[in-house]
């Protein structure tokens, strides 16, 4: 059977969440297994949120932040980027492939990029297979 990964996409409400809305409104369709979690700023996202997502059974976690220099809160996106880097290293040591955590810069207008990224991202998580957390009992 074809494997459908569970993916959480943390989206900054100022950029990627709007891009996702536009992508929705254009009715182009993107994988329905991607659950969008709205954040006030990517700088709010904590390591524990990402770990919890994996614990709850996510096969992949995507984090979308505003482009550098366009964070409405100045450096929230840069902060998120550093935190993701740190978390990816942690995941690898825990035994979860770091490729399951992906970080993207996106602006509110780049809804086509949003579609490309989630479609490609979905494929790459698919090719990784189910999360090791879920496979073993």
């Amino acid at each position, binding site marked *: 059977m074809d494997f459908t990964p569970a993916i959480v996409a943390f989206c900054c409400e100022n950029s990627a969440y709007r891009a996702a809305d536009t992508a929705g409104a254009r009715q182009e369709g993107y994988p329905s297994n991607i659950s969008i979690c709205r954040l006030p700023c990517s700088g709010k996202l*904590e*390591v*524990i949120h990402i*770990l*919890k997502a*994996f*614990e709850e059974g996510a096969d992949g976690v995507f984090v979308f932040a505003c482009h550098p220099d366009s964070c409405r809160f100045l*450096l929230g996106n*840069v*902060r998120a980027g*550093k*935190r993701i*880097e*740190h978390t990816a290293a*942690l995941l690898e*040591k*825990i*035994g*979860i492939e770091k490729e399951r955590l992906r970080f993207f810069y996106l602006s509110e207008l780049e809804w086509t990029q949003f579609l490309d990224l989630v479609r490609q991202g979905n494929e790459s998580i698919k090719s990784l297979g189910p999360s*090791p*957390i879920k496979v*073993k*009992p």
Partner: protein
Amino acid sequence: MIVAEQKDIAEIIPMTEGYQNILVIGCDTCVTVCLAGGAKEVAILACSLRLAARARGKKVQVDEISIERQCEKEFVDSLQSTVRGHDLLISMGCGIGVQTIAEQFPNLAVVPALNTKLLGLPERQGVWVERCQACGQCILDKTGGICPISRCSKSLLNGPCGGSQNGKCEINKEIDCGWHLIYERLKSLGRLGCLEEIMPAKDWSRSRNGGPRKVIREDMCL
């Protein structure tokens, strides 16, 4: 303040091998302030351990708690009911915390999750620098409030070595020469006379080298 840094998770995971019920204990004082072992880090470690076990096909129970100060027996004692049913305690306190817990719960395995690094202060957010080596014989009164034991890479007591150049240490050009700082401070205080007093040799039970140490949490530096 005591400054500690979290051990690599790859080092902590093997410590938990064979245990089923683990309790991660944080400390709300120094290690919270230095961003190593507070409530936030406890949650991250506990979750990481659960995930690591499951990724290896095992199932463990990892609980989390944080107490006021792990270095106080009274606070540690308050854990009596919480530790029941656990076979491993992971302390996210400093070295003293680990030992206090071990002392209070002699029948339980206790392991450290942190490396206790130094006594220091935050230079800026995410960067801590050493200011005291707890040598037990404070001479800050004679050195204008600047500690030669921790600020001088060689912990010299009677002025700089020959390697001091333009106020920088020969060990590392990034580091200020401790004795240069002391001289400048005493000069501005008008107390250069202090330097004339010869300080007797200190009794070092252990030798050390490498100069003042620094903890840098890259992901916290902004």
